[in-house]
């Protein structure tokens, strides 16, 4: 227990790092995901192809491989970011963005085709149909799976430890190794993660009920 009290500030710092990494990556992943999903249902063939390739490549590649490739491989071609936080955000948002894209696309598929036809017959163009009619309905229908992805991202952010970005898992590991006391340090980190993921789950449930389309 003592090591918790002694290292409380480090734990708090680690939790802060996990939260900021998760939130910033989520915002970027959301933008990437919605954009890519829009491209995948759009009329422009090369963009559709590129979006499909991106989703299939990234989704089926382990996150640790992406981290190692990005941080240890790409410097060979001169791509290296000063800040580990930025590197971690880039990798996490590219990875999560592919899943967000697939989820949003499945939401687009649930929008009744009559909605699109009605919008088209009002004279709306593709981007108007998508932005004003389809996406608002599609996003509402995938709140729960997107919430899953957010929680998965919270947990996945721990893999940023690969490149030496110290967040909650890294902090716990360091403290455990320094004090040769694994149970307490890891239990504290596990508890902290539960404190982060459980409220997210509840918030997603509440949000889902709020935006549900009543029919």
């Amino acid at each position: 227990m003592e090591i918790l009290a002694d290292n409380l500030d480090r734990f708090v710092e680690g939790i802060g790092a996990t939260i900021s990494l998760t939130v910033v990556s989520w915002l970027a992943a959301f933008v990437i995901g919605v954009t890519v999903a829009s491209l995948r249902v759009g009329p422009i063939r090369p963009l559709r192809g590129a979006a499909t390739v991106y989703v299939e490549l990234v989704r089926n590649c382990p996150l640790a491989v992406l981290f190692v490739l990005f941080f240890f491989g790409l410097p060979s071609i001169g791509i290296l970011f000063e800040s580990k936080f930025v590197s971690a955000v880039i990798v996490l948002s590219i990875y999560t963005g592919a899943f967000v894209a697939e989820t949003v696309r499945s939401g687009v598929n649930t929008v009744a085709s009559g909605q699109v036809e009605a919008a088209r017959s009002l004279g709306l163009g593709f981007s108007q149909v998508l932005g004003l009619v389809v996406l608002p309905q599609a996003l509402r229908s995938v709140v729960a799976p997107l919430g899953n992805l957010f929680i998965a991202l919270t947990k996945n952010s721990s893999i940023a430890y690969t490149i030496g970005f110290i967040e909650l898992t890294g902090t716990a590991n360091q403290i455990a190794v320094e004090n040769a006391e694994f149970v307490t340090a890891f239990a504290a980190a596990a508890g902290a993660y539960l404190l982060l993921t459980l409220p997210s789950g509840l918030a997603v449930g509440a949000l889902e009920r709020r935006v549900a389309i009543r029919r």
Partner: protein
Amino acid sequence: MTVALFDEVGPRGRRRVLVGTVVAGTVLLAVVVVAFGRFSSRGQLDADLWSILVDPGVVRYLLGGLANTLKAAAAGMVGATALGAVMALGRLSRRRPLRWLAGLYVEFFRGFPLLLLILFSAFGLPRLGVRFPLFWYLVLGLAVYNSAVLAEIFRAGILSLDRGQKEAAAAIGLRHNQAMLLVILPQALRRMMPAIISQQATLLKDTSLGFFVQYEELLRRAQITGSFDGNLLQALIAVAGVYIVVIFALSRLAQRLEVRQRRRFGGTIDITGGPEDLVAVETEGAARA
């Protein structure tokens, strides 16, 4: 279905799509050209760097890594399935303490990162006097974590069945366990299949976390051989390709099965998104059945 978003555009729309296609095609081509230029200007396209990868020794080394990855994934999956089934049955048990314990287990182990569990297993357990080969620490972490996810999949599959099935089984005199074994599970298992395979793909991805504990799986071996031969980038790209092919095949299989289930039985467990942990499992079809 989504074709309706843009099909049958007028003459002006057609022109716009054409312009968009040309512009987008050019930009994408330019990106590819720039990327290749970057590789070649820094000598990363040199034949030597790539040809080491097909050297028999390196190939054998990397294939050994793939074998280690698959071994860990297989052992982890077996353990996770067994543990997950026990926990799912526990959560559906009629005895309250059992339900409570299984629920606690599932919520606890799904709530924090697998990496934390693997680090604890590999570095913490030996200090507590629990010693076995490195392989089993990784498998233990994979199995425990994924059993919590699979338990939720199993439970959702069982709950997604129409209540009439259980009632009919009771009406012909089957006891709870008999009904479960003979009526509920065979049907539920079919519905779960896509989600189980999808989770298997996730588990296969997660074996790459063995990298952290020096287990010589594919990623670790790529790093070792790449650092040794000075072609880390090339080795990592090759290995990423291998992962993508294997995991793509698994997730494609899951998707195929899901489509077939939906057509045949009207209900299945949703695997929207793809190979990533199903945190809260959505079921559908029960109401429609």
